Every structure is written in structure tokens, then in C-alpha cells.
């Protein structure tokens, strides 16, 4: 018991571990890496720094790759400093990961060892307002919810770090990449450990920063308008700006809560909010949810996530699939008691935004041809499910429902992204070009068997195929909407499950199978690209294998709801299997899989393409979905004409009114000086007249005041 308490008390070590790696890499190994590059001295300015990277360690161009390749600067081999950066990050993260797993397992098997409300692992009163009106504290808190999320973050981080060794093997920015990754993990853990809105907001912005840095990692890469792909730098900017829009609501919500209770702490707020007007609380919680909409890429702020796919694929797996985008879900789970206290509109908003997003993103994912973009929309869709889970759970189930899907989704979605990265990496080596279009893949199954099999496992898991992880977490959410008689949500989530199965198997077949392959087209088939792709190295395939395990078994943690919120229902395999609704879900998922199999394994791709193109309605639908409902274009118009229009008006106001006043004051002073200087005649006598005249006037004034004025 005492040992267990000590175990939890030192949990801050997990938080500080990635920060330590970050410091070591930035001030140690990365400097070593830069100094070990000859010809160009260690530089200080940003532009020169990238010049070093572009020239590589030998100071010469490394021109193996094709002309239309991305501009990612390459090096023939990594310096010792760069390799050390990777080892530092992986080694420290491995320790943190093991530690967090030990804590999780201890708390699962010895539920009493961790107090129900959790413990503060670090408490620092930054500023306490006299009289106890308000306090601003930095509190890191550990409870079951934080532990579950921490395990996800550290595990996926560790595997992604390991994977990055292979994926970024020839990138000149290798050390910088690891520095950003460790910074991200630290920021994410700040969110995980946060006990109040103040700390969570700091973490919130820090992950935004790391996300920005990592999306825009390949700063020199150009946009590809033909594939609707922005340049990484503009994608990074878009992500940052879209998050700011959500954060405006978030911070206003926090301010409403703080102004009415005088505390940021989640624990104190959950008791204090009962005194707030219920309507105001509902508004505040919906505003807080705006932050989650931005961070978790829900409609209407989802536009940044597909663009964020311009970042390196490990980043997409870690940040834009498994952890950061789930921060919104985690934040709602954290503030769950506040939503319970608020009116039903708060949870209703969460559930409906999630449901609409899930359906919207799933329909868009149906027709995408970019490998990573399918996964991006799939992530948006699955995050929608999590919000539905949080929105319909109520106090009976607690935040466990949404968190369970987050937990399983993190593993299989990270696996999907890393598998996709493995394919892109392999194709890059085979073609010397960047290939992300699934129309240039096909039949890769026998060529890269480990990637294909693990990808198939993840596909089945996300599709809700029975006895895979996603089956348990997703079907529980769908079934609960029916139990709550929320038929609108039920139909949307159920339909989305079918769409999910369809687009995931479609992506699998387009990449790894095809008509003509074995197993009826599921394995192998014609390869539509160039070169000879082959399996990726062990650094890439090992994380895939390791992630495939939780993608199957993570769903068997039936006590998850109870773990997150003591007293919540415990899942039971026989109950799940005897529920008719479960089998409706399975049938819908199987139907989606069957349609995908029929269309892509049984029908000739050219024939299918011709059929869609010749049917005006289908073609229009396809274009509509392919452009994601033209929402990006709509935002473009909105910003170009409305936002910029208002900006022009404001600029005119600034130029003519604000500047007018400022310049007018200056001009007045100038005029006064120019015309008033003639008062200075240079004749002493005129000064004397002024002086004594002034004295006379003052004397009369004083006399008058004393005689008739206020003195009397």
C-alpha cells in the first residue's frame, strides 16, 4: 500500500521525462549534430540553419530523388549527434512508458491503492489572491482517467519514436524532428496531468504549438494543387488558426466559470457549479466544448486535420490520430461532472456535433484517393463517435464510454497511420517520388506482408468486426444511443458504422489487394505504380506488430467504465452477444465490408470508374464528396470576401480616423509653434507687460475670490 502510494507520488517523473529528452536534444545532441557538419560553421540564424540541413553532412546535394520530389532535405547518412537524439528520446520514453504501465496495472489489479479522487503529484500555488477570493495554482493530478490516457500517450509515443528512426532515416532534420516529438509528448502529458483549467489550457496551447511545428516540418515542400494538397507550411498555419477559432470559445467558457466560482480546479468546480445559474453554466460548457471542436477537428472546424496530413506520417499517427486530437475528448471527460450539472443542451450539443461530424467525415472518406486523407477523415469520424459516447453516457456511465473508444482507437488508428507510412516509405524508395495516391498502389500484400496483415487487423478493428477492439468500444456507443431512445443519433451512428467498414476495406483493397489477387482479390493483385516496393525495415514493422496486439485485445478491458468512474456498469461478453442491437451493428458493418469487397475486388476498376463518370448524379455526388462538401472552398470565399472585407473597412477606419487623430494632434502642435512664435518679440518690455499683467490679473482674481468667492 505504501509502496503503491509512493509509486503514484512519483508519477511526475513521467511528465518530466519527455521534457528532459527535449532539453538534452535541443542543447546537447542537436548541437552536436550541427557542429559535426563540415564546411559550414554552426550557425545561429534560422535561414542558415536550414541551409546546413539542405546541404547535408558533406556539404553537397544529395540528388538521388526525382525532380518532382518533395523538397525535404536529405542526408546520405545521419551524424552521430542525430542518431543520439533518437536514442535519447526513445530510451527516456521507454522508461516513462514502462513506469506508466506499472502504475496502470497496479491500479487495475489493486483498485484500492489509488484513492478514488486521485492524488496530486505536484502542487504549486502560483498566486493566491488575499482573502481566498481566487487562487491560481499549478496542480498536476493523477487519477484513473489520467492513467488510462497517460498509458495511451506514452505507449504510442514510444512506438512512434521507434518507428521514426526508420521513417526519417535520411532526413536532415532528424534531431529537430525528435526534439519536436518530445516537446509534443511533454505538452500532451501536461494536459493529461492537468487538474485545473489553467494548466490544461497551457498544455492545450503547447500541443497546438508542437502540432504546428510538426505539420510544417518540411518547410520547403511545395503545394500540390492537382491533388488538392496544400504546402506543409500553410497547412501548419491553417491548423493553428482553426484551433485559435475554437480556443476563443474555450477561453470565454473558462472565464465564465472562473468569474462565477473563483476557481479553475475541476474538483472544486464540480461542487461550486451548483450555485451558478443553470442556463449560464450550459452556455459556458458549450463554449468550453468549442475548444474541443477545434482541437478534435469536429464540424465546422475540421478543415485543418486533412491538411495536417502534410506533416510526416509518424506525426500524423501520434498527434493527428492517437493523442492530440483526442485531447478534446479527454477534456470533456475531465470536465464531465460540469456537463452533468449543466442543462441537457450541453450534452446534446456534444452528442449531435459528434454525430454530424461522424457521418460527414465518413461520407467524405468514401471517395478520397489519397491514402492518408482517408485516414484523416476516418479519424474525424471516429472522434465524432467519442463525442457521441460522451454526450449520451450521462452520469450513469460516466466519461468511460467516450474514453474507451479513445483508448482502443488510439492503438488501431496509430497502427493504420504507421502502416500507411510504411507503404509510403516503401513506395518512396521504389519510385523515388512521393506517392500517396491509392490509384498508384495495389497488390502490395505479398510485397509487404507484415504491413498488410497488421493493416488488415486494424481495418477490421475500426470497422467493428466482431471480437476486435473497435467492435466493443464502438458498438457500446451505438447501442447506448438506442437504449437512450435517441433514434436520430442511433441511425446516424449505425449508418456511419457501415460507411466506416466500407471505406476502410476499400482503402485496404486499393493498397494491398485488387481484382486478380488471391483470396478473391484480398491479397495481392496488379501493382499500378512503378518500381519494386518491398517490406520496410524492422524499425518500421516492429511498431506495427506491437500495435496490432492492443488493436485486438484492448477491447477486452470490460471493467473500463468502472475503472474510470467507480460504480459504472461493467461490460460482459455474454450480455453483448445476446443483445440484438449488437448483431444489427455487426450486420451493418459486414454489409459495408461486403459492398467494398464487391466493388473493388470483383468489379474492374476501370469499369467502376466509367460507370461513375457516365452517371451525372453519381459524378456530381462523387465530386461533392471528393471536395469534402466544398467546405474549404466555402471558407476560402468567406475569408476572402467577408473577413477581408471587414478588415478593409477596419483598415480604412485605422488610416483615416485613428491615424487622423494622431496626425491631427501633431499638426496642431506644429501650427501652434509656427504661428505662436511671434509672441517672442525679443523685447524685454513686452515680456514685462505680460508678466506684470498676469500678476495683476491673478491679484484681482484672488481678491475677488477672497472677497466674494468660495472662501466666504
Amino acid at each position, binding site marked *: 500500500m505504501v509502496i503503491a502510494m509512493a509509486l503514484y507520488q512519483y508519477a511526475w517523473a513521467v511528465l518530466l521525462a519527455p521534457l528532459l529528452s527535449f532539453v538534452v536534444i535541443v542543447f546537447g545532441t542537436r548541437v552536436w549534430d550541427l557542429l559535426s557538419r563540415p564546411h559550414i560553421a554552426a550557425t545561429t540564424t534560422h535561414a542558415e540553419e536550414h541551409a546546413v540541413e539542405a546541404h547535408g553532412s558533406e556539404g553537397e546535394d544529395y540528388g538521388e530523388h526525382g525532380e518532382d520530389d518533395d523538397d525535404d532535405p536529405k542526408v546520405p547518412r545521419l551524424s552521430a549527434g542525430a542518431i543520439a537524439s533518437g536514442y535519447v528520446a526513445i530510451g527516456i520514453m521507454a522508461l516513462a512508458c514502462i513506469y506508466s504501465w506499472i502504475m496502470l496495472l497496479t491500479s487495475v489489479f489493486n483498485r484500492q491503492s489509488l484513492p478514488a479522487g486521485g492524488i496530486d503529484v505536484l502542487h504549486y500555488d502560483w498566486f493566491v489572491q488575499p482573502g481566498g477570493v481566487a487562487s491560481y495554482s499549478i496542480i498536476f493530478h493523477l487519477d484513473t482517467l489520467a492513467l488510462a490516457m497517460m498509458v495511451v500517450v506514452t505507449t504510442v509515443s514510444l512506438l512512434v519514436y521507434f518507428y521514426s528512426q526508420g521513417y526519417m532515416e535520411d532526413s536532415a532534420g532528424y534531431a529537430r524532428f525528435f526534439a519536436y516529438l518530445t516537446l509534443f509528448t511533454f505538452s500532451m502529458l501536461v494536459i493529461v496531468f492537468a487538474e485545473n483549467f489553467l494548466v490544461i489550457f497551457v498544455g492545450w496551447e503547447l500541443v497546438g504549438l508542437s502540432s504546428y511545428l510538426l505539420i510544417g516540418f518540411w518547410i520547403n515542400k511545395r503545394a500540390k494543387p492537382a491533388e488538392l494538397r496544400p504546402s506543409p507550411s500553410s497547412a501548419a498555419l491553417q491548423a493553428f488558426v482553426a484551433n485559435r477559432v475554437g480556443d476563443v470559445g474555450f477561453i470565454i467558457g473558462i472565464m465564465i466559470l472562473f468569474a462565477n466560482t473563483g476557481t479553475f480546479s475541476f474538483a472544486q468546480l464540480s461542487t461550486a457549479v451548483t450555485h451558478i445559474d443553470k442556463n449560464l453554466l450550459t452556455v459556458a460548457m458549450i463554449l468550453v466544448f468549442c475548444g474541443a471542436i477545434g482541437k478534435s477537428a469536429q464540424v465546422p472546424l475540421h478543415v485543418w486535420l486533412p491538411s495536417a496530413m502534410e506533416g510526416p506520417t509518424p506525426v500524423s499517427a501520434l498527434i493527428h490520430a492517437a493523442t492530440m486530437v483526442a485531447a478534446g475528448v479527454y477534456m470533456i471527460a475531465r470536465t464531465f461532472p460540469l456537463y452533468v450539472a449543466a442543462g441537457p443542451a450541453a450534452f446534446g450539443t456534444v452528442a449531435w456535433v459528434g454525430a454530424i461530424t461522424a457521418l460527414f467525415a465518413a461520407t467524405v472518406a468514401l471517395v478520397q484517393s489519397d491514402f492518408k486523407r482517408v485516414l484523416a477523415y476516418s479519424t474525424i469520424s471516429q472522434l465524432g463517435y467519442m463525442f457521441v459516447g460522451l454526450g449520451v453516457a450521462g452520469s450513469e456511465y460516466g466519461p468511460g464510454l467516450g474514453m474507451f473508444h479513445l483508448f482502443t482507437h488510439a492503438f488501431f488508428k496509430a497502427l493504420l497511420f504507421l502502416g500507411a507510412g510504411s507503404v509510403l516509405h516503401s513506395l518512396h524508395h521504389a519510385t523515388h517520388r512521393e506517392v500517396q495516391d491509392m490509384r498508384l498502389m495495389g497488390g502490395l500484400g505479398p510485397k509487404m506482408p507484415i504491413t498488410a496483415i497488421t493493416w488488415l487487423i486494424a481495418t477490421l478493428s475500426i470497422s467493428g468486426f466482431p471480437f476486435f477492439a473497435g467492435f466493443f468500444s464502438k458498438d457500446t456507443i451505438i447501442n447506448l444511443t438506442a437504449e437512450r431512445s435517441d433514434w436520430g443519433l442511433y441511425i446516424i451512428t449505425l449508418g456511419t458504422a457501415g460507411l466506416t467498414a466500407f471505406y476502410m476495406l476499400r482503402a485496404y483493397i486499393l493498397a494491398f489487394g485488387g481484382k486478380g489477387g488471391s483470396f478473391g482479390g484480398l491479397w495481392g493483385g496488379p501493382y499500378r505504380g512503378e518500381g519494386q516496393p518491398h517490406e520496410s525495415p524492422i524499425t518500421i514493422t516492429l511498431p506495427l506488430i506491437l500495435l496490432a496486439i492492443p488493436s485486438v485485445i484492448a477491447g477486452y478491458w470490460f471493467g473500463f467504465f468502472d475503472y474510470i468512474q467507480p460504480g459504472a456498469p461493467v461490460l460482459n461478453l455474454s450480455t453483448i452477444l445476446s443483445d440484438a442491437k449488437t448483431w444489427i451493428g455487426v450486420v451493418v458493418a459486414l454489409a459495408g465490408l461486403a459492398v467494398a469487397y464487391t466493388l473493388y475486388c470483383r468489379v474492374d476498376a476501370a469499369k467502376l470508374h466509367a460507370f461513375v463518370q457516365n452517371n451525372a448524379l453519381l459524378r456530381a455526388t462523387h465530386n461533392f464528396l471528393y471536395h469534402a462538401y466544398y467546405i474549404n472552398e466555402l471558407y476560402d470565399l468567406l475569408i476572402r470576401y467577408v473577413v477581408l472585407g471587414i478588415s478593409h473597412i477596419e483598415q480604412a477606419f485605422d488610416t483615416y480616423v485613428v491615424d487622423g487623430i494622431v496626425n491631427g494632434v501633431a499638426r496642431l502642435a506644429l501650427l501652434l509653434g509656427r504661428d505662436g*512664435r511671434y509672441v*517672442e*518679440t*525679443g*523685447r*524685454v518690455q513686452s515680456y514685462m507687460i505680460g508678466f506684470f499683467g498676469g500678476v495683476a490679473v491673478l491679484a484681482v482674481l484672488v481678491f475677488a475670490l477672497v472677497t466674494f468667492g468660495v472662501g466666504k
Partner: protein
Amino acid sequence: MGLTLNHFLILGAILFCIGLYGAISKRNAIAVLMGIEIMLNAVNVTMIGFSFFNHVKPYSTYLTGQIFAIFIITVAAAEAAVALAMIIAIYRKRETVDVGEIDIMKW
């Protein structure tokens, strides 16, 4: 009816006004200087008056006003010497002592 403080104050005021008039209206620099001297002496008269007619102890035993008057006389003498020297210097340079034409300090 003997002398009262009012006599001194009225005399001082009259002298001051005469001096001020002279200092402002005369064109000749020496006449202006004389006006200034009259103003200074007007102040001296007032000082002496206040000093002499003060009956409040312990201030009445102090001679502050009279000592001030002696100071002013001293300073006025020094000032007259400096001012006359300046007038001579200006006269040598500009061949005039008309203060209306001495405007080298103007804008």
C-alpha cells in the same frame, strides 16, 4: 495721527507703479534701469514697514525685513553695475540704447 503701516504700503505701491511705468514705457535703457531701481526700493519700503510695525512676539524682535532690505540694496547696486556695463557693451556694438531696437532674443 502718526505713521501707520498703511502709509508705508501705499507709498510702496505708488513707488512700485511709478517704477513699473518707467520700466515698461521708457525707450532709453538707462531710464528702464532707473525704473527697475525704483521698483526695488518700493519693495524695500514695504519690507521696512512690515518689519517696523510687527508687534507679535517673538517675530517683532527679529530684524528679518530690515536685513532683507539691506540685501536688496546690495544686490541692486551690483545689478546696476552689471546692467550699465551691458548697456555700454550694447551701445558699442549697435550704437543705440533704445530698448525697442534691442531684440536679439526674438524668435
